[in-house]
């Protein structure tokens, strides 16, 4: 069976019929698509996983600013605070937030990251996946399963909407990344396929309408901090779903809503930096400064 799975409903029924997990179906499909062995597919996924870990590792010990000089030292600040204050939500929260900043700051200083699904949303999946895997001693094989699950979620959403801020706002970038991360987390924590699909819906439902209005058009403000917020958001979605809390609106319909919301959103709020945060008084000053300095 190599048919295309284009909706979450199809995913659930195919998993049920074949008694397989999402990652199994998608690694088979990918092997067929690329005409390579499943092991080779997993090796390619491992390459992405390793690159994510490397970005975190490098990002944690850097405070180099971006080309615009606007961002780049938040991860250092956060780690400094954590040295003297344990965060309220404990060690896992500490790791996720630090790893998210480490990754997204590597991105803005032109370091090597993994677009997941995009560069502007590159920190959400890795921060959650790597932090949880370290804390719970998750095997590399399981991490790969989770990352394939994340990829499967993104690819199903992509069937309906392009994962680009210019098309559907940040919903389609950081929002979808959070849905991918939520689903991956359910996979890691031993949840069912159904719980995984509900985690996707719960994550997406709570970011509908998220605009893409970056200051000076750069992947910096508000992208850096947004990655941290949506990493934590994805954990909330996974925890709720693991408790069998269901999205009353089925996941495919939530994706439709996201798609429609994206279409209705003004182009001024979709990566064109013509409105919203990007046109605030202070943003305009920053923009002037940035354009004059680079």
């Amino acid at each position, binding site marked *: 069976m190599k048919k*295309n799975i*284009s909706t979450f409903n199809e995913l659930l029924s195919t998993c049920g019929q074949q008694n397989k997990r999402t990652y199994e179906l*998608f*690694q088979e*499909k*990918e092997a067929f*698509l*690329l005409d390579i062995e499943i092991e080779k*597919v997993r090796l*390619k*996924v491992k*390459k*992405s996983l390793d*690159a994510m870990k490397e970005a975190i590792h490098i990002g944690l010990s850097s405070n180099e600013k*971006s*080309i*615009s000089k606007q961002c780049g030292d938040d991860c250092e600040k956060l780690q400094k605070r954590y040295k003297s204050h344990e965060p309220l939500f404990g060690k896992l929260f500490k790791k996720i937030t630090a790893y998210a900043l480490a990754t997204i700051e*590597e*991105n*803005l*200083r*032109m*370091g*090597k*990251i*993994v*677009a*997941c*699904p*995009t*560069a*502007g949303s*590159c920190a959400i*999946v890795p921060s959650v996946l790597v932090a949880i895997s370290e804390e719970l001693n998750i095997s590399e094989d399981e991490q790969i399963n989770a*990352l*394939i699950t*994340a*990829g*499967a979620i*993104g*690819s199903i959403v*992509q*069937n309906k909407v*392009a*994962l*680009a801020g*210019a*098309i559907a706002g940040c919903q389609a970038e950081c929002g979808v990344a959070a849905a*991918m991360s939520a689903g991956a987390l359910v996979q890691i924590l031993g949840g069912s396929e159904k719980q995984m699909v509900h985690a996707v819906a719960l994550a997406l439902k709570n970011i509908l309408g998220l605009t893409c209005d970056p200051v*000076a*058009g*750069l*992947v*910096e403000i508000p992208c850096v901090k947004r990655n941290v917020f949506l990493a934590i958001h994805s954990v909330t979605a996974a925890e709720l779903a693991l408790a069998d809390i269901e999205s009353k609106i089925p996941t495919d319909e939530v994706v439709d809503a996201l798609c429609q919301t994206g279409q209705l959103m003004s182009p001024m709020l979709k990566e*064109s*930096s013509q409105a919203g945060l990007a046109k605030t008084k202070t943003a305009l000053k920053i923009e002037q400064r*940035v354009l004059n300095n*680079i």
Partner: protein
Amino acid sequence: MKQSSLFDIISPIMVGPSSSHTAGAVRLGLLSRNIYGLTPKKITFKLYNSYALTGRGHGTDKGLLAGVLGIPVDDTRIKNIFDLHEANEVNYQFEFLEDFNRHPNAVDFIFEGTQKMTVSGDSVGAGNVRITNINNFPVDLTGEYNSLVLIYKDRLGILSKVSGIIQTEGVNIAAMNCERIAKGEDASMCMSLDCALNYSIIEKIKRIDDIYLVRHVGKLES
């Protein structure tokens, strides 16, 4: 519907900060380099619209140059490309322009050397790119496949000759598009192939009468 790949979602491994403005720029450069196919003496990059406005902040200029130098999207040398030995061996310049008839993320590469060639392309989102013109001929090249690009005089039988040669080598044509200025005038053809062509087939195609330009453009690896 085109089947989407997992690796559209959990890759590429790339230097930041932007899929469209950095990785896309490198990919456009890599494709243009292969289309030009020679070592250029001079390259002029014309960046349009969003590429012009936010390009420097996203390292778009660095990415474009890296691409034409053959440096891939995940190479950390891109950040300091202007200081790189390879970059100093070629004369290059950037122009930043506005033209709302063009895509928001459009670029022209003007190569000069033993031959002059202009290659134009767009970064269409999420790191995906499209080469749209070669010397003002409309083409459609995305780097997803190994591709054969031809510019030729429109006449009876050219297509079947080319596809015949490819078929004898057992290479499947996944997609094909042709454009022409007018009947009997110059035309262009892009073929997407399921595997790479070897050198001897390309030489055979080059020997067909009325074909002016033949380029085999390898698919982008990342």
